[in-house]
């Protein structure tokens, strides 16, 4: 029981940045703009937020800075993809490379710590919150441990993600006027255009949402999880989020389930390190690490279900004359 709860607890922690990034990707890709630059935007946000949180001592200002930095790259991606009808994949790759380049350059110049930021004080980091009655309930069987160990004791960004961002994104995408336009533009931009919807405007808005969410994801990593910016700290999480998005067939709740699954695999893998299982023996950690990527490849190829992308994805919209 205790084992399981700690496993689920770390699943929630690991999945949060993945969920934020996957939902960010959802906005962009549902509007028809491929985004392989999630990784770079998270990295830049992680750096900007850690720097500002360090300088001001305020994690919320850090979050703002992270969102702003990620937004800048998002708008760059929009400029290339929407205004200049450029290749969205190449643009995403440029975003990633620029992010890998500029973050250590600025970090070294500003903080002189080998491309990282100095560790944040506790007051400059997001703290784990203890929910009301968590201490008193912890002795109650079953509910106690679940409430006080699993549900309580996360940072505010986790609660924001699960209780605010996820329902909001689902509502916006499926129930709001903007969401309908978003999906229309991603499936058939010409029809949307005929109906008087500005394709460019919807795609720009989608990429703004994308920037904000990526900013949150990056901030979570540096201002909460590690407590400083470390060179290349995203380590493929942006691509993992992209994989989860495809795994969830570009739908919010399923993408989140994908993130939870990948995060759970990660939590299991850390616990299995060096442990010999009965019958199977020791499972090399790489076997579990590789699961999300293999699953995504199989899914895309239609071997396990079929992931159908938004129809207009990756195609620049040129208004017919």
């Amino acid at each position: 029981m205790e084992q399981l709860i700690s496993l689920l607890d770390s699943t929630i922690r690991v999945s949060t940045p993945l969920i934020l990034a996957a939902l960010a990707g959802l906005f962009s890709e549902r509007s028809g703009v491929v985004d392989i630059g999630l990784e770079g935007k998270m990295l830049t946000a992680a750096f900007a937020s850690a720097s500002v949180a360090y300088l001001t001592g305020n994690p919320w200002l850090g979050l703002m800075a992270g969102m702003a930095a990620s937004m800048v790259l998002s708008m760059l991606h929009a400029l290339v993809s929407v205004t200049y009808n450029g290749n969205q994949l190449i643009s995403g790759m440029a975003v990633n490379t620029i992010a890998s380049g500029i973050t250590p350059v600025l970090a070294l110049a500003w903080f002189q710590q080998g491309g990282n930021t100095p560790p944040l004080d506790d007051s400059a980091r997001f703290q784990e919150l203890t929910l009301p009655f968590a201490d008193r309930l912890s002795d109650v069987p079953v509910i106690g441990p679940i409430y006080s160990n699993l549900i309580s004791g996360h940072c505010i960004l986790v609660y924001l993600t699960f209780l605010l961002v996820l329902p909001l994104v689902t509502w916006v995408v499926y129930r709001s006027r903007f969401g309908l336009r978003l999906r229309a533009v991603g499936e058939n931009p010409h029809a949307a255009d005929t109906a008087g919807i500005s394709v460019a405007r919807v795609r720009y808005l989608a990429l703004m949402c994308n920037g904000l969410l990526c900013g949150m994801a990056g901030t979570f990593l540096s201002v909460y999880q590690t407590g400083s910016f470390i060179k290349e700290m995203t380590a493929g999480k942006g691509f993992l989020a992209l994989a989860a998005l495809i795994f969830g067939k570009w739908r919010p709740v399923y993408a989140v389930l994908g993130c939870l699954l990948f995060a759970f695999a990660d939590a299991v893998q850390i616990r299995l390190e060096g442990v010999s299982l009965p019958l199977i023996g020791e499972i090399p950690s790489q076997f579990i690490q590789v699961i999300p990527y293999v699953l995504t490849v199989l899914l895309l190829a239609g071997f396990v279900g079929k992931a159908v992308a938004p129809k207009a994805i990756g195609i620049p919209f040129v208004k017919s004359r």
Partner: protein
Amino acid sequence: MKLGQPSTLPRWAQLTILPVLNLVAALLVTGVVTWLIGENPLECLKLLIHGAFGYGEGIGYTLFYTTDFIFTGLAVAAAYHAGLFNIGGEGQAYLGGLGITLTVLAFDKILPFWLLMPLCLMAAMIFGAAWAYIPAWLQARRGSHIVVTTIMFNFISYSVMLYLIGHHLIEAGSQNPTTREFGANSWMPAMQGMAAAIGVHLPNTPLNASFFLALIACGVFYLVVWHTRWGYELRTVGTNGDAARYAGMNVPKVIIVAMCASGALAGLAAVNELLGSTHRMNVDFTNGIGFVGVAVALMGRNHPVGIILSALLFGALTQGGLDLSFAKPLITREMVLLIEGLVILFCGGLENLFEPMLAGLFKRGK
């Protein structure tokens, strides 16, 4: 996707003015960043150029990195001509390295150099091609998007190689995740060694005979893409897949063969690194060369001559950037990544930025 579309510019302008304009734009942005962090951009540029070309050792290292980038650049270009964006050069080079390692570890005690070396080259190409074959097959037959698949394959290759190096290939008793040193009969002849044989003294650098191999690959690439029937099919598929199909070309087959050629070229980059320089397999020996290949191919407009020149540029940036980071404690070698990213942005993403401007100028001229 709009890959491989013909341009509106005259060919010579496309190959000269446009890349220079893009490079200048990228360098200007980098200059501003350098200035913002309180360094003098011109002084840094001078240091960088001196580090890359100013002395014998620097030139040797520059050409060594150039060799890597020619191979990965050609790899990206081969796929690009078929309208495919192969972002998986990193993984294909890594797997090419596995092919070399397995061959060397199996045969370096038995076979002489002149038998072992061709075997290693074959192994590098076959392993690289095989790693590219799967995404290509999935794209051609099952319709899954090659970019996403090759990204996933990069990550899969990291895990596979970490596992193999850490559990099977690691030198017995060693703490570091590397293989044993390869036998000297598998080493690619070093440039200084070959020069000494004809009486020329060169400084000690990792530059080796793979450099000539890269130049030969460029020549073959040119002949195959522009002067064979298959190359014609390749370019037709890239320009207009529907037209190619109506003309009776086997589009899935062209896609698969193009990706295999691409993977084989990426695999050859491992020859330069493993047989030419480190003489053993290390974790992460690829170190981003597959991604630099994208910038090289975009900037070189997918033409071998352009690729040689832009590979030289990135080789110089890599080597000069290293020197610069030693001279200037406030500048890291990641500065080169920034330039690389900007080059990808201007040459690839914003290709519609300068081209219409130039096209307008040319039209007015006529």
